[in-house]
């Protein structure tokens, strides 16, 4: 049996990048949340804010660590699986990745130690500065990565000379046509992820009847942030949709599940399809009548463009793009609905006492991560068959590496990453079950994981003087 190295290279990158994006999304969201919590603590001196900060700091630290480690792997994979991409796109992509390291990694590395271990060692204001710098670092990191990825989606500021890519305008490479829209979309997605994570854990405590003052505050703050952010995200999402429709029509044609050049009028909004790419049709389609025209053309009888408008050799695979979009959009609708319900319950004063709502929040705890993954599947599978849109096909970007080498490394990545995920989930669950009262006053550098989990270490850390009493 002959295995296509290009396919394995793509599966490997898809697996590792899908795993990786979970953790930066969590750490970007939590870093901003932590900065706000510490800022509120400094302003009000309310110990509850500090307790919330200390509790979420541990989970943030774990997510941050796994995110950095799995992100480094991606850089090496450019060489392992996509050397030709690196060779051609290097002049544009390379400096942006290097600038990410210089601006955000250096900032994060410089201040992360103070954030994690410095609560008792530096003054509260300097510690707050460290938290803000780490949050800024995560934001800068996202900016550079989104700039590089957006350049692959909408390349600009370059020219091809003798088969080599030459940068003609750096500003247009960095501020390419889709970056200004995709960056806020991704950042807001990360902040929504953090908000639902925080609110979901708080809701679980309320349902258990534990840590009630902590839980009420986190449910209140989490749902408030989520409400404002999801409304903004729905607005931003529509603008990103319009931008991508202009620059990558094939992606949005695939995302809507229509094949014919013009859909029927009025167009339904499909939620489930069985696409047949070979015969350019749907074997089965289930949708809501009129809604496609209303949402996509803003009229009651508008027609929607289908994938046959794009030549076959330039079409993405409809199934991936369609279901990626439906996962992202479907979850966004659920989030908006739940946030609207939270406003109704708040109006009645029943936000903390309505069991069905708290249960729904618990179920929605990982929803931000799942929606973000869906969105990235739309972005990446919708760009196919190009790796740099309109310039370099994915099939031409693959390294001249035997399939066996790629397969063996893929298996190794799956094994190691399964361990990473198991460890992250296990420790996160341990911290959540332990609760905020036993969270150490600061993260302890204990020397070993086994030692860190001993009860006397936890008890000792928890019984130390609170940081509020440390003078400036």
């Amino acid at each position, binding site marked *: 049996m002959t295995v296509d190295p290009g396919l394995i290279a793509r599966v490997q990158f898809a697996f590792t990048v899908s795993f990786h994006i979970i953790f930066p999304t969590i750490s970007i969201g939590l870093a901003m949340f932590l900065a706000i919590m510490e800022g509120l603590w400094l302003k009000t001196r309310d110990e509850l804010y500090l307790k919330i900060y200390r509790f979420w700091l541990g989970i943030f630290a774990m997510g941050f660590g796994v995110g950095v480690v799995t992100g480094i792997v991606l850089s090496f994979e450019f060489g392992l699986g996509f050397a030709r991409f690196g060779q051609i796109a290097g002049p544009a992509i390379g400096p942006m990745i290097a600038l990410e390291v210089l601006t955000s990694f250096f900032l994060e590395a410089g201040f992360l130690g103070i954030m994690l271990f410095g609560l008792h060692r530096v003054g509260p204001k300097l510690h707050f500065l460290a938290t803000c710098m780490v949050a800024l670092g995560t934001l800068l990191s996202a900016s550079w990565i989104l700039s590089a990825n957006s350049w692959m989606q909408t390349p600009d500021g370059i020219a091809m000379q003798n088969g080599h890519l030459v940068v003609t305008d750096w500003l247009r490479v960095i501020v390419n046509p889709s970056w200004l829209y995709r960056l806020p979309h991704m950042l807001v997605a990360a902040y929504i992820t953090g908000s639902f994570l925080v609110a979901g854990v708080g809701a679980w405590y309320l349902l258990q009847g534990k840590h009630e003052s902590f839980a*009420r505050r986190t449910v209140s703050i989490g749902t408030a942030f989520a409400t404002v952010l999801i*409304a*903004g995200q729905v607005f931003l*999402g529509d603008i990103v949709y319009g931008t991508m429709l202009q620059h990558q029509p094939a992606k949005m044609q695939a995302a809507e599940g229509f094949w014919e050049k013009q859909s029927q009028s009025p167009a339904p909004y499909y939620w489930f399809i069985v696409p047949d790419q070979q015969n350019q049709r749907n074997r089965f389609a289930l949708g809501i009548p009129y809604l496609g025209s209303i949402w996509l053309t803003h009229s009651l009888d508008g027609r929607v463009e289908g994938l046959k408008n794009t030549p076959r050799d330039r079409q993405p695979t409809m199934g991936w793009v369609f279901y990626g979009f439906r996962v992202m959009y479907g979850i966004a609708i659920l989030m908006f609905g739940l946030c*609207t319900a939270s406003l109704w319950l*708040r109006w009645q004063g029943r936000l903390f*006492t309505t069991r069905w709502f708290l249960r729904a929040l618990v179920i929605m705890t990982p929803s931000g991560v799942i929606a973000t993954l869906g969105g990235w599947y739309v972005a990446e599978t919708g760009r196919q068959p190009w790796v740099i849109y309109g310039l370099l096909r994915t099939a031409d970007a693959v390294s001249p590496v035997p399939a066996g080498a790629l397969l063996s490394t893929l298996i190794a990545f799956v094994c190691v990453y399964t361990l990473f995920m198991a460890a992250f989930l296990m420790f996160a669950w341990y911290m959540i079950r332990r609760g905020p009262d036993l969270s150490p006053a600061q993260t302890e550098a204990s020397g070993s994981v086994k030692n860190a989990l001993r009860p006397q270490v936890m008890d000792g850390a928890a019984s130390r003087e609170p940081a509020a009493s440390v003078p400036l």
Partner: protein
Amino acid sequence: MHFFGAIAVTLMGIGFFFAIVGVFGLPAAIVALVLFIALAAVIFRRPQAEGIPR
């Protein structure tokens, strides 16, 4: 009372969603977004009961 309130809030939520997603154009989307956030900011200040969830 709760039933009719829930229906009214659901319809308002759907209305806001359609407006924010741009069905009535960009200016209406901006107005709806600002209105939704302003309304939410007012509601955030309401005091909440602290009993056992039921």
